[in-house]
């Protein structure tokens, strides 16, 4: 942690906050406050500079044109790459996840360069759009309970050798490559296709980011009653598709 309060940066809400993913920011803030941590939330619009001193950067999903605009502006800005070089944590969803890779297919059907923060390449799926509830198992290295979320994407993301799959799906598509992988991560950079928002469905992911940022192994427990009830319901729903 770079100073007394935890700095959480919400990247480009004007472009990448279309699918409720700002819920991740809200859950992270809430769970930090419940642990009496001081949080400073910075919403950075795409005509502003990305600060390099953040502890946790969150990026959400967006529509195809805003995704291209966000990639162009993030490349030009360079701040996110510098922040990661400084050890910052990044958690990204859907369009944001694709932007963190080497490249993706933009709204004009062309290959668009990403930020290269994750060793992944995204293409456009030929089949039906992946839409629906997902259930998966998160990489055991991260020590988290099963993943539940909602996916809604046409993109397919292929992992390179230095990215590990964030999860393996039991139900749903995830990366859409047919190999059962969902999302990707390396030391401090994470990507997933899961909405829901994913941290509302999986508050332990928010806790994981807090622990990484604080460099601690455990956090005081909080009341997870409603999260648990929602998780149980959605996990059951994913196993019985309509």
């Amino acid at each position: 942690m770079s100073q007394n309060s935890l700095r959480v940066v919400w990247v480009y809400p004007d472009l990448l906050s279309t699918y409720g993913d700002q819920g991740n920011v809200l859950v992270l803030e809430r769970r930090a406050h419940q642990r009496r941590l001081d949080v400073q939330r910075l919403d950075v619009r795409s005509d502003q500079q990305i600060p390099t001193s953040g502890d946790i950067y969150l990026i959400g999903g967006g529509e195809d044109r805003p995704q291209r605009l966000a990639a162009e502006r993030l490349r030009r800005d360079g701040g996110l790459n510098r922040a990661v070089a400084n050890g910052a944590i990044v958690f990204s969803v859907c369009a944001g996840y694709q932007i963190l890779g080497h490249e993706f297919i933009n709204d004009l059907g062309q290959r668009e360069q990403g930020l290269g923060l994750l060793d992944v390449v995204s293409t456009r799926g030929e089949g039906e759009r992946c839409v629906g509830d997902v259930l998966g198992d998160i990489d055991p290295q991260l020590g988290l309970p099963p993943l539940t979320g909602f996916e809604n994407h046409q993109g397919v993301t292929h992992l390179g050798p230095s990215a590990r799959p964030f999860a393996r799906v039991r139900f749903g598509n995830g990366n859409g490559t047919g190999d059962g992988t969902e999302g990707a991560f390396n030391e401090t950079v994470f990507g997933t296709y899961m909405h829901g928002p994913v941290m509302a469905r999986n508050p332990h992911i928010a806790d994981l980011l807090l622990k990484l940022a604080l460099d601690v192994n455990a956090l005081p427990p909080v009341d997870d009653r409603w999260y648990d009830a929602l998780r149980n319901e959605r996990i059951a729903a994913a196993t019985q598709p309509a």
Partner: protein
Amino acid sequence: MAGNSGPLSARAKLAVTAGKAAAAVSRAAGRGSGSVIGGKVALKLDPDLLARLATHLDVVLVSATNGKTTTTRLIAEALRASGPVVSNALGANMPAGITSALAGGSDARFGVIEVDEKYLAMVARDVSPKAIALLNLSRDQLDRAAETRMLAEKWREGLAGSKAVIIANADDPLIVWAASSSPNVVWVAAGQEWKDDAWSCPSCGGVMQRPGDDWFCGECGFRRPTPSWALSGDYVLDPHGSAWPIHLQLPGRANKANATSSAAVAATFGVPPQVALERMYQVQAVAGRYDVVTFMNRELRLLLAKNPAGWLETFSLIDGPPAPVLLSVNARGADGTDTSWLWDVDYTRLAGHPIFVIGDRKLDLAVRLEVAGLDFRVCESVDEAVQSAPPGRIEVIANYTAFQDLRRRVGN
């Protein structure tokens, strides 16, 4: 051409008759009003039926993400000052439902038609409307709907050659983008609280600047047009600068905006704003929305809110604390199956209200409210929620199928 109803062809007559028969069967089988099945049968027999039915009418189309059913009602009420109106008043807003509604109004002069956003360009081509009212566009059911800006783009392409007068909201950049390809636009400053789908310029992608009520793109110069009509507090300002008081039974700023757009539409058909606005007072509840019902000896006001922009407008019209609030959310096909949008709604606006939560997705709402730091109670049924609520009229806010469920239970 209004009222000058040339006879329908034998084929069209047969199609209308067959459609009515199918609707009657559907009603008899207890499967709803039958308007959609009736329209489907009729359109199959005569694919040009919609166009043919419309040639006898002066048609107004109404489309938007929010407020189209209510505005259709307000316009229909206003135009009745000048002649009989046929309208799809119950919200069956796709081609089959529209066909069915028009088939029921052979002696009408005006057709006031609500159109689903996806079908606007197509219906506008078929029915050659005299006027089209475009109210607002925002995120809605993104698991199955087109992207919001893409929708604006499709409207823009579809309306480019239209001869209709477009009555469009100058305060919504996506609406302005959609309408500004048309040669004949009447701009209405109708306002829009929700701004989060138009931070990037629909024309060039630049970041939109929004000082006060104004907006413009600093990069390409795309900007808010000068409106000729405006909503100003409780008044409609007409193009001559006269202020006309709005008296509505319907609550909220959004309905004043709908009334303003409706007055502008009425004026294009020669109905003066004073007459139009007086007539709009008749409208009490629209397909159960805004209705106050008594259930288990308690007063409930039923409010429909289907997406973040709709919830935002609804929060601004409910009674203040300590009025109890009952929230119900489903995620069935017609609602959109992804509940993530709940996180784009600012529920901290409900602070101080006793909150009760029901519906298929009450647990999603529970987590949402917990994270907003609000007190709430999750209930199994509307009965349990009403029994638990402290005194006062209960404000009931529900999304689409949750609203239908509620209406059935409370007997509205």
